């Protein structure tokens, strides 16, 4: 039958097969083997899977110390973690409905919350365990199905690349100054289209120098190279994470002089050679002269650069970077890249006095947040501009609050051909 199916239609079928089944199809016949081996196939596969993205979620189970990764379909704007997932199977014609509803919250909690009651997710098996018990990996980023993680422990870091959709992974070799990197490393991970390459960028601040050494790992070469930034590139990085927008990695930072100003620092993934260049993107005018934005973080929302978190109230020199006097928690998006006037405050997150961390943004406009207080509330759903009495909802997702991580994910065949481990 398939002798009359033209190659393009065999490809149309194969790009719809789950990534980890594709290698099996190579064994069917020479024609299929050659179709799949063609580098164009992986590109076509990725283009198709980008239309069917997932959400990647990570949490640390405090009882077992295990780091758990799950994949959630994202076709529904309510996903992941729909507001009333636990009401799905409720029998609404049951005369004891109101009694069942009262009991339901406890039942759901007893069953293990979302991950005990719902089946709308796929469990992933991370091939790496952190060296320190009850610790979790720093997930630098995920692009085209490839997840980049760092395990910081003791005097050196381990770096990993992992593609869960085909279950391939590899540990990267170590860069030069790995033993000096302890508290002063910042990372970014992205895809550079012109060279079809994946790069892990590490900023290292040595000897109290404010201009970093830039280590770049490229997957195509399998090695690191070191570069120096331009002398005027003096920044103190404030954001723990980074994002990739317009082919460049962005971090939140401030300049080191006394009359400092806050800004976003960008590093183009096309940078190569011994000297690399940083560019600057402005933050909202009102935040520019404020104390360092160490309680804020950087994200991407619908392709737009986003700033969210606790805006500082006034500067209190406690000798540390953790300034907890926050004015409000807000979400800002930069509607036009690099145009300072286009920064728009979308809304304020109002949950009282607690410190809030935004874990992720749902397509329906709701937020997934955690609150930093003594009662470990787990992951919460927050509806901005809501008229409800209490704006956040318990999702019954437990775990170490600091460990919650949410990002987009697409299936791909990246890392298939590399010399990888399982």
């Amino acid at each position: 039958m398939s002798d009359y199916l033209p190659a393009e239609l065999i490809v149309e079928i194969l790009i719809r097969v789950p990534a980890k089944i594709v290698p099996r199809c190579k064994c069917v016949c020479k024609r299929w083997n050659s179709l799949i081996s063609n580098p164009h196939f992986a590109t076509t596969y990725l283009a198709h899977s980008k239309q069917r993205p997932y959400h990647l979620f990570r949490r640390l189970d405090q009882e077992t110390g295990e780091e758990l990764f799950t994949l959630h379909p994202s076709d529904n704007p309510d996903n992941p973690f729909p507001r009333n997932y636990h009401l799905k199977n409720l029998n609404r014609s049951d005369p004891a409905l109101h009694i069942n509803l009262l009991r339901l919250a406890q039942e759901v909690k007893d069953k293990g919350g979302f991950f005990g009651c719902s089946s709308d997710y796929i469990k992933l098996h991370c091939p790496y365990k952190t060296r320190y018990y009850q610790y979790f990996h720093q997930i630098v980023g995920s692009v085209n199905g490839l997840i980049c993680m760092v395990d910081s422990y003791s005097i050196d870091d381990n770096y990993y690349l992992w593609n869960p959709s085909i279950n391939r992974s590899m540990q990267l070799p170590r860069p030069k100054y790995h033993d000096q990197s302890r508290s002063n490393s910042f990372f970014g991970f992205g895809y550079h289209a012109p060279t079809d390459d994946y790069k892990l960028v590490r900023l290292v601040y040595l000897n109290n120098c404010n201009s970093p050494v830039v280590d770049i790992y490229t997957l195509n070469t399998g090695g690191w190279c070191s570069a120096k930034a331009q002398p005027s590139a003096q920044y103190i990085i404030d954001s723990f994470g980074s994002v990739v927008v317009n082919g460049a990695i962005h971090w939140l930072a401030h300049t080191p002089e006394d009359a400092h100003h806050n800004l976003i620092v960008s590093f183009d993934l096309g940078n190569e050679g011994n000297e690399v260049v940083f560019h600057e993107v402005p933050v909202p005018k009102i935040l520019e002269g404020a104390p360092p934005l160490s309680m804020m973080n950087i994200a991407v929302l619908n392709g737009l650069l986003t700033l969210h978190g606790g805006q500082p109230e006034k500067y209190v020199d406690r000798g540390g970077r953790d300034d907890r006097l926050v004015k409000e928690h807000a979400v800002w998006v930069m509607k036009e890249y690099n145009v300072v006037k286009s920064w728009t405050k979308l809304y304020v997150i109002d949950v009282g006095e607690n410190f809030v961390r935004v874990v992720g943004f749902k397509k329906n406009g709701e937020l997934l947040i955690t609150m930093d207080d003594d009662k470990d509330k787990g992951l919460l759903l927050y509806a901005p501009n809501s008229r409800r009495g209490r704006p956040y909802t318990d999702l019954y997702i437990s775990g170490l609050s600091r460990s919650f991580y949410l990002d987009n994910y697409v299936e791909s065949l990246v890392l298939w051909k590399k010399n990888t481990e399982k």
Partner: protein
Amino acid sequence: MSSVKKVTLKSSDGEIFEVEETVAMESQTIKGLIEDDCADNAIPLPNVTGHILSLVIQYCKEHTSSSDSNSSKSNEKLKAWDTQFINVDLNVLFDLIMAANYLNVKGLLDLTCQTVADMIKEKTPEQIRAMFNIVNDFTPEEEEEVRRENAWAFEISLKNNNVVDTFEVEESMAKELQTIKNMIEDNYTDSVIPLHNVTSDILELVIEDCKKHVEAAESESEPSYSLASKLIDDPLKA
């Protein structure tokens, strides 16, 4: 008197179909012909038989976004209709793929290709060949090499009794265990093999042991069945 514009389509075997223009325009190919004013007479479609064309028209009718009562079909109802519609013979399915491609009906191409892809994911290479009527043109050595390069892709999932704890194991290793070997050879098509008598810890140890045996067996001619496989064949007191 009907003010609805119609077009005439003629299949490869001479069947004539009169279809509303809006329905016919679900096919980008036909849409192009209509817009180029080539649709006054019957449009000949030499690559599509009457049987298949009638199915394509059925699909287009159901999916057309016109302003009649059908347009308020909910997504769920449409999905249910699609599932029912696509429940056809494999031959018909392949013909529908060809027709959807030739007529450029994006939704139908997606539906038919995804259906075939879903069938493939449950099958071994041998079964895929049977499905597509493909002759295996690899020599045994060539096939062995492709398999070996991608051995990790032939993983069998083993699931233990208490927890949903799946272990993905290379086929060669799983075959070390007599019980599982039998299941595989009986073409156990379920993607997860449940092992009711084995807890995770024991299973982990067994898999480790099998790994070592496979590595050792690479230099021997015959795999040796270890203590581990005997453990599996006796019901374990968990």
